[in-house]
């Protein structure tokens, strides 16, 4: 993989300690002093560094780490923050991802703000623990930098790793830039820790495309962060002063009401995400759509639906397609769980053809392609406007999706629009004429 050898400038800068704005290594500097120094500055950070900075600002109490590329750089940055005394947190070197997530859950269950993360097969190794964490309503946070699942070994990004866990009850969404990564971590804690909700969050970014490519990140003041994200109190923490039992056995007839409660938590999440996203923009002056980023959708006939870092290339393509007279647009999903059914229906209520760009692998599913299109199609089926839907398998194995591939996809959508039907439910880009 070529990406692994790209020098990671921002981390280098961090660890070399050059300039007054690097946070990592100035010895003997006080946390408050350093964060005051950073207030309002813009740093050039990659996605991993942005994640680490967000955890620093969030003043997390317990971090559980286990190495796997590419998310490891997040933990490397955090260990350095701790070594320099900029962050006071227990940093736990777990003996595997299952233990890593279990330890985060144990910490979260006692009321600590816990932070962890993983990539690729690391995410699947921890699989058993996702449902217990969400079911116990412990709002721990996990930073994901995607990596293709084995086989064969591949460092490149594919969203399949995190998407495998999509039905376990975690909030889950992809950021497209380092700035959005930073913001989404803070937003994620604020949403997940809301006492009306209490759910764990997966804050995802494409491996390498976002995790290891730098972008400008505006850093807030610590007061801004503390106002938006105050220290929280888990109402049912494992505290000897107020004993509770977590996770006892139930009888079968006690199952359905508890499952219904979990299902409803996802509906509650829709409202809380909307509310907190608004609060975020009031607090930091950067606005995000709560669920769907709309790009040139007003009059769009053919629309790409996707998530993550490739959306940046997609936007450039949409502009070029417009020059050719094709009414193209893009809708980017900001959260995948809970799935924004209503917002997506609204965003696509004038679209004629929708092309889902998958960047994941869903073997043997209804579309015989990827995972995203299944949710997107279901959402649109129940909407007032029912556009044609197809999907594109692209960017697999961590390949880039260049503009000519997006153009090829647009042509397929235009053909479908003219014909009045799609050729097939999923196209393998690069393998078809």
């Amino acid at each position, binding site marked *: 993989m070529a990406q692994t050898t790209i020098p990671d400038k921002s981390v280098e800068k961090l660890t070399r300690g050059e300039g007054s704005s690097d946070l990592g290594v100035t010895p003997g500097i006080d946390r408050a002093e350093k964060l005051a120094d950073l207030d309002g500055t813009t740093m050039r950070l990659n996605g991993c560094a942005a994640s680490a900075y967000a955890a620093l600002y969030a003043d997390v109490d317990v971090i559980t780490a286990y190495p796997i590329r590419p998310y490891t750089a997040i933990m490397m940055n955090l260990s350095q923050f701790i070594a320099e005394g900029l962050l006071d947190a227990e940093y736990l070197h*777990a003996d595997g991802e299952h233990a890593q997530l279990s*330890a985060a*859950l*144990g910490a979260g269950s006692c009321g*600590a703000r816990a932070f962890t993360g993983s990539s690729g097969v690391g995410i699947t190794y921890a699989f058993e623990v996702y449902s217990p964490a969400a079911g116990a309503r412990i709002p721990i946070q996990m930073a994901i930098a995607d990596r293709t699942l084995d086989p064969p070994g591949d460092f490149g990004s594919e969203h399949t790793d995190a998407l495998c866990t999509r039905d376990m009850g975690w909030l889950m969404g992809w950021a497209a830039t380092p700035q959005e990564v930073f913001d989404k971590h803070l937003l994620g804690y604020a949403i997940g820790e809301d006492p009306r909700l209490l759910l764990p969050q997966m804050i995802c970014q494409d491996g390498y495309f976002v995790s290891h490519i730098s972008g400008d990140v505006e850093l807030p003041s610590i007061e801004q962060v503390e106002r938006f994200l105050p220290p929280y109190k888990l109402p049912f923490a494992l505290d000897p002063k107020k004993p509770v039992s977590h*996770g006892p056995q139930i009888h079968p007839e006690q199952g359905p009401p508890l499952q219904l409660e979990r299902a409803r938590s996802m509906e509650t999440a829709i409202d809380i995400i909307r509310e907190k996203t608004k609060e975020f923009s009031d607090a930091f002056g950067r606005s995000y759509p709560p669920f769907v980023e709309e790009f040139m959708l007003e009059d769009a006939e053919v629309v790409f639906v996707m998530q993550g870092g490739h959306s940046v290339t997609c936007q450039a393509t949409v502009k070029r397609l417009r020059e050719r007279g094709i009414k193209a647009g893009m809708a980017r999903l900001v959260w995948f769980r809970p799935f924004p059914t209503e917002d997506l229906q609204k965003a696509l209520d004038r679209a004629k053809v929708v092309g889902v760009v998958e960047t994941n692998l869903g073997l043997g599913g209804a579309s015989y392609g990827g995972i995203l299109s299944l949710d997107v199609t279901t959402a649109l089926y129940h909407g007032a406007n029912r556009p044609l839907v197809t999907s594109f398998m692209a960017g697999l194995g961590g390949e880039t999706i260049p503009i000519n591939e997006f153009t090829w996809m647009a042509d397929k959508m235009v053909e479908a629009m003219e014909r009045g039907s799609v050729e097939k439910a999923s196209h393998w880009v690069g393998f078809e004429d």
Partner: protein
Amino acid sequence: MTQKEVVRQHLPLFEEQGRSASVPDDVGRNLHYLPDMPEEDPYQAGHRTCAGCGPAIQYRWVLKAAGQNTVVAGPTGCMYVANATYMSTPYTVPWAHTQIASGGSFTSGMAAAYESMIRKGKYEGEYPNILVMAGDGSAADIGIGSISGALYRNHDALFICYDNECYANTGIQTSPTTPYGGSTTFTPPGKVIPEGKKLPPKNLAKMMSEGHPNCYVATTTVGYTLDLMNKTRKGLNHRGAAFLHCYTPCQKGWVYQTPMTVELGRRVVESGLFPVWEYDPAERKYEYFIPPEQRPVVDYLAMQGRFGHMHPEHVALMQVAANRNWEDMGADVPKRLRELEDPEAHKHLKEEEYSLPVNRGIGA
């Protein structure tokens, strides 16, 4: 950063003198009367364990010794399923279920949380006792890695294995601590495999003591209440990780008469099959308990249906293992026990006669 001091508890040991001094019984064994104990029972009524359940006895003594300022984790196993029923759990201390492989890791997280929250002023109060009680399937098999990781990282917590020598909760399957010859639903004796289980047990506690610097490690059984409670307190008082391996008979899995749970806890030690010891990591020294009475293994085996199928040569092999244990402990092996290493000295186990009621059932 201003950090608050993490104040830790110190639990006094129970007196082994005075009211609780040992007195010899009619066979010369030391009997302890129970000392004045705390009235509080953080492990209360409300559980559904079997009559004669060894782990339930252990849970009660451990939590009585630990007291109310304690946080407990329980990985999947009998003592999850039989203890903690929704809206009717027996705990007056905070308790959490963990996945079966997460006993070590989840508990690490709890310890890390309290270290961090107290230090950062987010929690008011003394550092609570943090302990996990994991079955042998969890501690010696699927979760051994996570417990090893936790002991290695040296969290200030007590990791206990309640060892009923099988996966009892799922219907008595073999675990790494099931003894040689034990009949389980995964190691049934038959014509081709007459002994049942063919492997000797994993030496879990020695793995923990030899492999984890700074870790206080001890073994004990439910036959020695005071020892169990004091080792619990020593483990909790130890600054850093502690591991306690406790032998806890399973009436359902081992097939014995229900009042014999505590008696088995003594006989297993007196027959040399479960060495009781304590490991001091600072001195790197083991201190072995040599019981005043040394018995043939038959005295122990014949009480349990799970061994009822054993042939003379299988019983002799158990005696060999016991005698090697005595030697490891630095105890003399009496001539009569050495002679029992010979298969000729034994009958088929089901034909043995004993003063204690013997369960003639074969198998689990």
